């Protein structure tokens, strides 16, 4: 072993105590006998000890509370819940066997069940058609008062949700479209105000937001994987989420700019 010096990888392994017990013992004996390797190890040890000085600044006990305030603003709107547990693709042999047994039972019941199912489907189709033909009730006109700061808060939440949305989870994606539609009216108003008052930064960001909200709202058939990916790329390339966050925290008119909006907006 004297002629076979330890390589750097082995020395690093030794330093971090990652070597297997037997290997570690052999390496330790080699270091005792080989001055060259021992020096290499000391140098490595010295360098790595010197590099270990990146200490994080201490955060006080109130940090968690402040962080929660930041997180809470960006959480999905009230009434939402964390997404449902996805189905596992590989859940073990017993699941396969259960599936096979289930298939056998289903096959035995297929003839009878198929008839019942066919009948039920027919009833369902009739019910759906009837519901579609029913004239929609006229919506009550709604007027809401919107504060710019609230509008930006809610827009930020939507953008965060869009950023992490999974198009395959329809239950989560559908409400995003509704939320975009709800924000659109107020966004128009605030954008027009910003243009008139010469607040170029706000006008520009709200204009981008407007395009995005419109795109989401007008997407035929709702958001699917392709359209969601496109929206996420646009958001990312335009840095929209960042701009909205900055405006939410810095814009001087966020608490004073108020608009009355009909049929939508942030209440």
């Amino acid at each position: 072993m004297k002629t076979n010096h330890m390589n750097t990888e082995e020395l690093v392994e030794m330093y971090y105590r990652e070597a297997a017990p037997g290997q570690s013992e052999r390496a330790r004996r080699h270091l005792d006998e080989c001055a060259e390797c021992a020096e290499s190890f000391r140098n490595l040890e010295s360098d790595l000890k010197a590099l270990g000085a990146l200490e994080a600044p201490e955060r006080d006990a109130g940090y968690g509370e402040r962080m929660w305030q930041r997180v809470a603003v960006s959480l999905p709107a009230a009434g939402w819940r964390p997404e449902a547990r996805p189905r596992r693709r590989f859940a073990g042999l017993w699941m396969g066997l259960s599936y096979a047994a289930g298939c056998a039972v289903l096959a035995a019941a297929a003839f009878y069940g198929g008839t019942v199912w066919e009948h039920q489907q027919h009833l369902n189709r009739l019910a759906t058609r009837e519901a579609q033909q029913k004239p929609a009730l006229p919506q009550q006109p709604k007027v809401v008062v919107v504060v710019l700061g609230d509008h930006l808060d809610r827009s930020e939440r939507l953008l965060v949700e869009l950023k992490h949305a999974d198009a395959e989870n329809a239950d989560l994606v559908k409400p995003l479209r509704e939320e975009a539609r709800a924000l659109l009216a107020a966004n128009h108003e605030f954008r027009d105000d910003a243009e008139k008052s010469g607040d170029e930064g706000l006008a520009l960001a709200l204009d981008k937001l407007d395009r995005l909200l419109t795109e989401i709202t007008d997407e035929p058939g709702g958001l699917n994987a392709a359209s969601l990916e496109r929206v996420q790329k646009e958001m990312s390339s335009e840095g929209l989420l960042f701009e909205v966050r900055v405006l939410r925290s810095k814009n001087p008119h966020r608490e004073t700019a108020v608009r009355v909006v009909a049929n939508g907006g942030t209440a």
Partner: protein
Amino acid sequence: MGKMGQSDRTTIQAVLAGDREAYGTLVMRHSRMLFRLAYRMTGNEADADDVVQESFLRGYQKLATFESRANFGTWIYRIAVHCALDKLQSRRRDEARQVTEQTDPEEDGVQVADSGPGPERLVLSEEIGTLGEQALLGLTAMERTAFVLRHMEDRNTDEIAAALDVAPNTAKQTVYRAVQKMRKRLAVLRVTA
């Protein structure tokens, strides 16, 4: 990250049952631990705060996938590793350029004798530490993450592999590459005794 207490489990159940505010308890309990990790990985406070926030947001969205027998601290820690990795990847090019400029030995003129861990070297260790932080910026996002987890967070290869979703051997090789790069950067500051 100790064992997840009963209170974490109870809180998670409350959140999953629709009590959004209960999530605040988890945020308050684990924020400081995540901040330390995020700071070590990103190297600045603002980015670390963003990483912590993003981690808890992702955690909330994925909470239903959390296995009840698992440790929430470990789980959210792994999410934070990925968030920090994303943050590092997004700024990697800019920082790599800065490091090249800032650690130019001719520009800084700092030289450290390569004479083993003797007194001179120990005296200068604080300076090396600062330059070491700069050297960290020269690593790829993956290397920096692996190095921080191994060297500063004292995680073993299996834990690093799990956090990064890579094979243990890949994790080990990544740590090794990172160590090599860090030492090369430090080597330019030395003169032979």
